[in-house]
Structures are given as structure tokens and as C-alpha cells.
């Protein structure tokens, strides 16, 4: 049974009203430019993708052989072309398109647009009014996956607005790892990706969520993400951007509703060419003994501009603790980094909130120190930069780790 028509029509109405509503942050995008609708045929396996699409998927952390994945979901432009659940997880884990899930489960009304407001801005409105699927992943109570589920949202054509709505539900006591690769197969394509992501982590549940973006020079991106974390639940989010993008603006939020809930955000941002990157994370501590941590590492090369934001907002009268660590390195005289940490204690007299933020060049003293052990200058800069970006990230695909090093190698030598 699908979700109620009344609820859907209410949502639609709100979306209609927000159709022209500009976002609070980031350059405003004229969505009417991206009106192409492209449907694609289903495929038998990820390996049967075209070479170009396969390469794009791999660069976004997707394992096309699916050897170490619990399941896969692939969407190309506006079609769901592939879903697969490893047999071992049947009855324990569900993977399907959100469209299918909305048809199948009436209870999804309790989740769909319940954490992200549909009328937040024109992008959330567009995602509802012209929704083009998105994934639904649910792990059943007390089930754990050995390997990550991978979801790939691929754009392969010009002037497309890919409007996906993703929902992840981690039921009580369950544990799930998800790698989402959002990527572009046609490197010179102009377009936009709008990704609504609503995550629900029930009591004692754990979600390790890794999002890798692989866009290009003419592409805009506006994800809208909210995670609701219940008692003893944990949300661990990693975001990696190593390729140019025309503009991206996102400010994912984790609500720590339950007691002892925790959230950790990691962001690795590498600004190239004239990328406009405005990325933050917000943790709202509402339960007793909740914990938050937000770490961002930003490198601005070429003429890129990076806004690295972080908000910690304590709203509980009980003890809670959160820390924000936001650092940047400027590789280029034409680049810009803004580090904007914000701590808010809203009647939370027992909250301990702290932050450290810094922006600077690579210290010559450090480079010379490494060189005195026999390492060339270029290699010393690469080692320091890799170290700067190497956050302790579980389930980061090896290809991404390699890619981080390659990007650094290609750009670091121009930095001093």
C-alpha cells in the first residue's frame, strides 16, 4: 500500500509555494536551463556499463565488480538501471528506488520529507515536483552488513537536472555502511544534481555514510541532507570532493535526538580550477550525553573558493560535548578559503562546545624537515598534504585514497 494521497498533495502544495524560493547560501541557479528528461535501459551488471560511465563510477568509489559490497543501486540520469542485493542479506536488508518504496510501504509517510523540509528552497521543491527516483535502503533490526552497500547516481547527458530523494533507515540495533558515488560520465556536461537525503538511525543503530563527489567544471550540485539519530545511535559521515565543480552548496544536519546519540562529520575538500564550494555540517545536540565531532580539511588551489562551515548547537539542559576542527591550506594566490565555525549554546548550561580553525600555507619549516631526511621538495609537500587530508576514515574505498594522493601530486608542487 502506498503512502496517503492527502500527505502527498500537502507536500506538493508546499513544494509549489517554494518553487522560486532562493537558498540562503550559494549562488542562485536558474533551474529552467536543465529541462532535458533522459530515460535509460536497465543493465545486467555494473561491468556492462560503457567505459566512460564505468570510469566515472570508479572515480566515485564504486566497485563495479561488486566483490566487497552487500548490494548496489545505480541510477543513470532519470532511470534506475540496476539494483542488486547480495543473497546473503535477503530478508535482512532492502535496496530499491524510493519511488518503488513509496508505492510499497504506506508507513514511509513517517519518513518521506519528515526531516528535510520540502519547502526549504527551490531545490527541495524541484526534488519533489520533478522527482527522479533516488535510493531507499533499510537494514532490519539488529542486522549488520559485512560490506558496504553502494549507490551510484550518475549523470551522463547535458542539461539534466537529476532530482533524487534518498532514504536510509537503520532499524534498532542495526549497523550499515553506505558508499554513495555521485558522478558525471560526460565531463563537459552542464547540469545540476539535487540530492535529498533523509537518514533515520533508530535506537542503538549505526550508520557509516561515505559520499564521494566526482563532478566537473560546468556542473552545479545542491544536496540537502538530514540525519535523525535516536538513543545510543551513531551517525558517521564522510564527504570527499577532489574534482572541480561549478558550484556546490550543502549544509548537512545531524539531530542527536536520543540520549547518548553521537555524530561525526568528516569532509575532505580539494578546490580546483574556479570551483565554488560551500560546504558545512551542523550538529544539533538535543539528548543527554550526546556527542558531536566535525572535522574539515580544505585545500584551495587555482582560483577556487571554499566556504568551510561548521555549526554545533547544544539544546539540552543535560551534559553534552562537541568539537569542531576546521583547517585549510591555500595552494594558490588566487584561491580563497573562509573557515566559519559557529558554536551555539541554547540554554544548554552543561554543554561543552569547542572549536579550532586555521588557514595557512604549508609551513616551509615542515617541508625542510622532511627534506633533511632525503626527500625531495615535491615529495615532502605531497607527504605533508596527504597527511593533512588523511582523516581516520573507516570504509573509504582504496581507489579514493589513491585518488587523493594523485590529485595532491598533480597540484601540490605549484603550492610553494
Amino acid at each position, binding site marked *: 500500500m502506498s503512502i496517503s494521497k492527502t500527505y502527498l498533495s500537502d507536500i506538493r502544495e508546499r513544494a509549489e509555494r517554494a518553487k522560486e524560493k532562493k537558498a540562503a547560501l550559494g549562488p542562485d541557479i536558474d533551474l529552467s536551463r536543465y529541462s532535458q528528461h533522459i530515460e535509460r535501459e536497465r543493465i545486467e551488471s555494473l561491468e556492462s556499463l560503457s567505459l566512460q560511465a564505468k570510469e566515472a563510477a570508479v572515480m566515485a568509489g564504486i566497485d563495479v565488480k561488486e566483490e566487497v559490497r552487500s548490494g548496489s543501486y545505480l541510477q543513470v540520469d532519470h532511470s534506475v538501471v540496476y539494483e542488486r542485493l547480495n543473497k546473503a542479506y535477503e530478508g535482512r536488508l532492502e535496496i530499491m528506488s524510493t519511488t518503488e518504496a513509496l508505492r510499497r510501504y504506506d508507513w514511509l509517510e513517517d519518513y518521506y520529507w519528515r526531516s528535510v523540509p520540502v519547502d526549504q528552497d527551490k531545490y527541495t521543491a524541484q526534488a519533489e515536483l520533478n522527482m527522479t527516483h533516488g535510493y531507499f535502503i533499510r537494514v532490519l533490526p539488529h542486522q549488520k552488513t559485512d560490506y558496504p552497500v553502494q549507490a551510484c547516481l550518475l549523470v551522463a547527458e547535458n542539461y539534466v537536472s537529476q532530482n533524487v530523494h534518498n532514504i536510509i533507515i537503520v532499524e534498532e540495533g542495526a549497523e550499515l555502511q553506505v558508499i554513495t558515488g555521485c558522478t558525471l560520465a560526460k565531463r563537459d556536461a552542464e547540469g545540476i544534481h539535487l540530492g535529498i537525503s533523509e537518514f533515520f538511525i533508530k535506537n542503538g543503530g549505526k550508520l557509516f555514510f561515505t559520499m564521494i563527489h566526482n563532478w566537473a567544471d560546468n556542473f552545479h550540485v545542491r544536496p540537502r541532507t538530514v540525519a535523525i539519530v535516536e538513543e545510543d545511535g551513531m551517525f558517521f559521515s564522510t564527504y570527499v570532493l577532489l574534482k572541480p565543480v561549478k558550484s556546490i552548496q550543502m549544509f548537512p544536519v545531524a539531530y542527536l535526538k536520543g540520549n547518548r546519540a553521537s555524530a561525526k562529520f568528516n569532509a575532505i575538500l580539494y578546490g580546483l580550477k574556479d570551483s565554488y564550494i560551500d560546504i558545512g555540517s551542523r550538529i544539533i545536540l538535543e539528548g543527554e550525553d550526546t556527542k558531536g565531532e566535525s572535522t574539515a580539511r580544505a585545500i584551495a588551489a587555482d582560483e577556487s573558493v571554499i566556504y568551510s562551515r561548521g555549526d554545533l548547537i547544544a539544546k539540552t539542559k543535560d551534559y553534552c560535548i562537541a568539537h569542531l576542527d576546521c583547517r585549510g591550506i591555500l595552494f594558490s594566490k588566487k584561491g580563497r578559503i573562509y573557515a566559519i565555525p559557529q558554536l551555539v549554546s541554547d540554554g544548554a548550561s552543561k554543554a561543552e562546545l569547542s572549536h579550532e580553525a586555521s588557514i595557512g600555507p604549508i*609551513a616551509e*619549516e*615542515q617541508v*625542510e*624537515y*622532511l*627534506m*633533511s*631526511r*632525503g*626527500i*625531495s*621538495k615535491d615529495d*615532502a609537500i605531497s*607527504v*605533508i598534504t*596527504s*597527511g*593533512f*587530508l*588523511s582523516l581516520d576514515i573507516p570504509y573509504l574505498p582504496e581507489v579514493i585514497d589513491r585518488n587523493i594522493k594523485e590529485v595532491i601530486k598533480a597540484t601540490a608542487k605549484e603550492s610553494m
Partner: protein
Amino acid sequence: MQEMLRVEDLWLSLGEKQVLKGVNFSMNYGEIHVLFGPNGAGKTSLIMTMMGFPRYKVERGRIYFKGEDITDKDIYERARLGMGISFQRPPTVRGVTLRKFIEIISDGADREEIIGIAEKLNLLDHLDRGLNEGFSGGEMKRSELFQLMVQRPNLVFIDEPESGVDLENIALVGEAINTLLGKDKVKDPKRGAIIITHTGYILDYVNADKGYIIFDGRILCGGNPRDILSEVKKNGYRKCAVCR
């Protein structure tokens, strides 16, 4: 014994200040030399110049190492030729763990042997921390010597091995220097060192061959390091100025 290092008429200025004023000296393979001198005399500047740090650019004079003129060579080229340095206060490099860095500089050396060295130097718990991140004075010195043991230079500059190190750790540092220089073995006579010391404590553990006093950018005298130390302890460096 064959000559390893020769410094000829070395002049250096930092900003407005003339720091080295015609330094001359040489040393053979396997020797340990000690530099004494008051603060600001030019000791650290001399070893930084010999190691090739860009800020310490030679104005006049030449440096020869293993028969090669290295005056215009880069730091890493000198390191690859066989020079190494233990910093008095090394910088912190966050994100680059000691383990990772040792792997990078070890050039395929035996992993077990490396872990064995770390264990001897009480550094096992520090392997997964950023380089020098939150290290105490003694831990920094031991980490420096650990890196040098893996790097295996023929000539090592050691800047104040006792500074910031408690008495208990000085013995460990002294022992590590002897191991680094191969003094605990009959063979392996090719490693030498130039050590800067203020207190001379390190001489209780390391058998130095020759000492020098640097004063106002010049080497004033050379001789038995223990004799020089007792003279300095008795009369301070003021007498050196008179001696000039």
C-alpha cells in the same frame, strides 16, 4: 684516516647580523666532534649551513663532503649523500605519523628491525602519532635518533641532545647516539658526528674525539673536548674572548 668533511672560510649572515666569519675546520670518517660556545655564537647556524637549509645561504667559502663540493646542493641532496641532522626543536607535522614517515625514509629496510629499534627507544606508543605531535623533550630526541638510525647517514649533526631531556633519558639518548654512530660495534667505523652541547652531559655517554669553541662566528680553539669543557666550566666563555 680519510677526510670526510672540510669547511673552508665559511661566511654567513642572517638579516643584518654577520653570524659566521670565516670558519675553517675538517674531520675524518668516524670521528665525533663537539661544538661549545655561548648562545648566539653561531653553533646551530654552522650546522644548519652545512646541512644546506635555504635560510642559511653561504656568502663566501666552500663545504666539501666525501670529496665533493656540496656548497650549492639542496638539503635533500646532502641528506642523500650521507648527511643527517637531529634537530633541537623539530617541527610538528600533524597527520604524518611517525610510522608512515619511517616507512617513507626506510627505503625497504627490514620492518621487524625497525620495530625493534622503536622498542629499544621506547617509541612503540608514538608510532601512530603525528611527527613530534605532543612529544616531550626526551621523546623528540629519541624520535630524531630513530629517524636517523633508519636513514643511516655517514655524518650526523646533533643539536643539543640534552636540552629538555631529564637525566634518566640522557642515558638513553647517549646510548642511542652510540648505536646510531655504530660505536657499540667493532666494525662500521664510517659514521661521524658533530654535536652541539651546552652542558656537556652527553660527553659522559659519548666518546668524542675533538672539541671546538665557537665564539662570535669564529672557531677560536680546538682540542680535547673534556679539557675544553672543564676550562669553560671554570672560566666561562669570557676567557675565550681574551684568548683571541
